[in-house]
């Protein structure tokens, strides 16, 4: 029996579907519903929330201060996605064209970071980028070397090395997010490029196009769905990123998830935090809707 026959076999279908349905309702829809209700309430005591149906939380959430943080989060996420695409596309191409026996290993290398805890990876990255980290030490050594070379030819030595502030700023947040999200971009791109008939590339070359033109006219358009999938799958988690800006960002680089976290913890204003959360969820819904509408239009155009 296949699941397509569910109309003929309602009872077994219900038996199979009930467990996941129960799971989804209990652990996903119910908590979401509670948070959604909170967003229409107000604090009535240190641990009590009265659902009053007020829209004050949403009013406050759409104030300029919070909207600007929203906007900034979106900008950071978009930048991260763009950088991931620029780095990820050649990587995915390289894996696609690598020899058969190397491909599984290269894919493994892309997925390896997932096997390590995000927190540990982030701390490792921070150790690398701290003012006394390896990156700064390496740069310092180069600087000293350059200084020594200058004295060698009789010039004044360079001034003492001042470590570059690599951490606790927006740069660190973007770099950290790119580091975390790159695999999300590479995998869908790889799967799209791998499905591409290689003789299309050869046909383009055969008809006189150079490699660059073949890339822009053939490879990129045909990898379009993969690119769209990679962009969505990178943009959405980057938009809700919490850990990376928290650990690697400075005072001015908080993203919307950090603001939400503060409402639930330090500020103890759950209704407002709930309203902010739902604004973020709505924004993501809109992104996904745009994406799927575009997909539908393409299918119709065929």
């Amino acid at each position, binding site marked *: 029996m296949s699941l397509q026959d569910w109309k003929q076999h309602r009872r077994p279908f219900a038996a199979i579907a009930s467990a996941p349905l129960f799971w989804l309702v209990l652990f996903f829809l119910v908590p979401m519903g509670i948070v959604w209700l909170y967003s229409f309430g107000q604090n009535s005591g240190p641990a009590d929330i009265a659902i009053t149906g007020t829209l004050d939380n949403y009013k406050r959430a759409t104030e300029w201060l919070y909207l600007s943080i929203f906007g900034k989060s979106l900008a950071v996420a978009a930048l991260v996605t763009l950088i991931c695409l620029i780095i990820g596309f050649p990587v995915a191409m390289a894996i696609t064209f690598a020899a058969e026996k190397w491909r599984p290993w290269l894919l493994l290398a892309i997925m390896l970071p997932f096997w390590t805890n995000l927190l540990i990876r982030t701390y490792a990255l921070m150790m690398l980028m701290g003012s006394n980290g390896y990156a700064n030490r390496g740069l310092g050594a180069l600087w000293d070397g350059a200084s020594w070379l200058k004295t060698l030819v009789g010039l004044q030595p360079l001034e003492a090395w001042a470590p570059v502030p690599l951490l606790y700023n927006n740069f660190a947040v973007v770099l950290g997010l790119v580091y975390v999200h790159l695999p999300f971009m590479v995998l869908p791109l790889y799967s799209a490029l791998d499905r591409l008939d290689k003789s299309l590339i050869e*046909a383009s*070359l055969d008809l*006189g196009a150079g490699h660059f033109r073949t890339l822009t006219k053939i490879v990129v358009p045909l990898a379009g769905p993969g690119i769209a999938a990679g962009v969505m799958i990178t943009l959405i988690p980057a938009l809700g990123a919490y850990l990376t800006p928290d650990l690697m960002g400075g005072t001015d680089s908080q993203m919307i998830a950090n603001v939400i976290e503060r409402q639930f913890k330090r500020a103890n204003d759950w209704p407002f935090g709930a309203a902010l959360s739902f604004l973020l969820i709505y924004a993501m819904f809109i992104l996904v809707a745009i994406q799927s509408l575009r997909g539908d239009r393409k299918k119709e155009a065929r």
Partner: protein
Amino acid sequence: MSEADPIIQIRGVTKRFGKHTAVDNVSLDIKSGEFFVLLGPSGCGKTTLLRMIAGFELPTEGQILIDGQDMAGIPPNKRPVNMVFQSYAVFPHMSVAENVGYGLKIAGVGRAERDERVREALQLVSLGGFEDRKPDQMSGGQRQRVALARSLVMRPKVLLLDEPLSALDAKLRAQMQFELSDLQDKVGITFVTVTHDQDEALSMASRIAVMNKGDIAQLASPSDLYEYPANRFVADFVGSVNVFEGKLTLDEPDRAAVECPGLGKVYLNHGVTGPHGADVWIALRPEKIYLHVPGEGKAIRAAGQDAPEDHNLARGVIKGMSYLGDITLYEIKLDNGAMIRVSRPNLSRHDQEHFTWDDRVSMHWRADSPVVLLG
């Protein structure tokens, strides 16, 4: 440049992939305007050779000249050849007109001229009016025509076709064989086709190079290839054939005889020029063997046969038959145990009822039918 000048010269080309030698020191000339076919089983190196002409593979050794120019270091997009791919490689995100106009656009041909040439090319492959179609709205045969038009519109010196008909069904394939020959006549471009299908090769080619294990086994016209195969590989690969081992017992300018333990005494009405007593092979095509009821043979042979009494004659029992419509194929066990295949045209509707399983039959063949193979 005259017709007979080689448009493609392949000189001592070898291609190795790691330890595997795909093409082994091949030299051959392809003449301008010819329909040249590279024929061979899969893995014989024919596609690799074609891809080296196109520039997708580089020879490990040797030289390829197109129109007198050495192609070493010249990338595929700069070569005066175009290719029709086995999968057609029609760009799925472009319309038919965009596909056909792609190369012209890259070459910087203006809009008006481009449209005109695209229209002409589509007309040439009988796809006029299909300009705005998308490839996924077309059948395999139509997509192949798009691929053909896309290459022909570039007016290449040589058109390379990689297994052009392998993805089509039998009827369409037969039709396309004629159309391709026709098209080649019309445009006058040199065609170089790779195929593993001998019917395709025989029906379209002006010359065929049969390849085996990276080497050219024979280079000849279709009829020469079929009637005068140079070796056992070619005899067996091109068409169906019965091969028997034997010893050369008589070899004079106008006649020869071979003793085959499997088949009997074989008489030929021409010389072989092999050493007396040499080990040779006799190749005999199934359609060149006459089948008859024992006893009738003598009368038929007396009526105009040229071989001595006990030569070119065999007897056996039908062990298998397959009715193919136009012909019937018989598997016959000879009295000495060897098997032989004989085909017989069904000249009338009831012909195939003449002979059936376990019938005793006798066979004979003309003295110019067997081919003596030395290798």
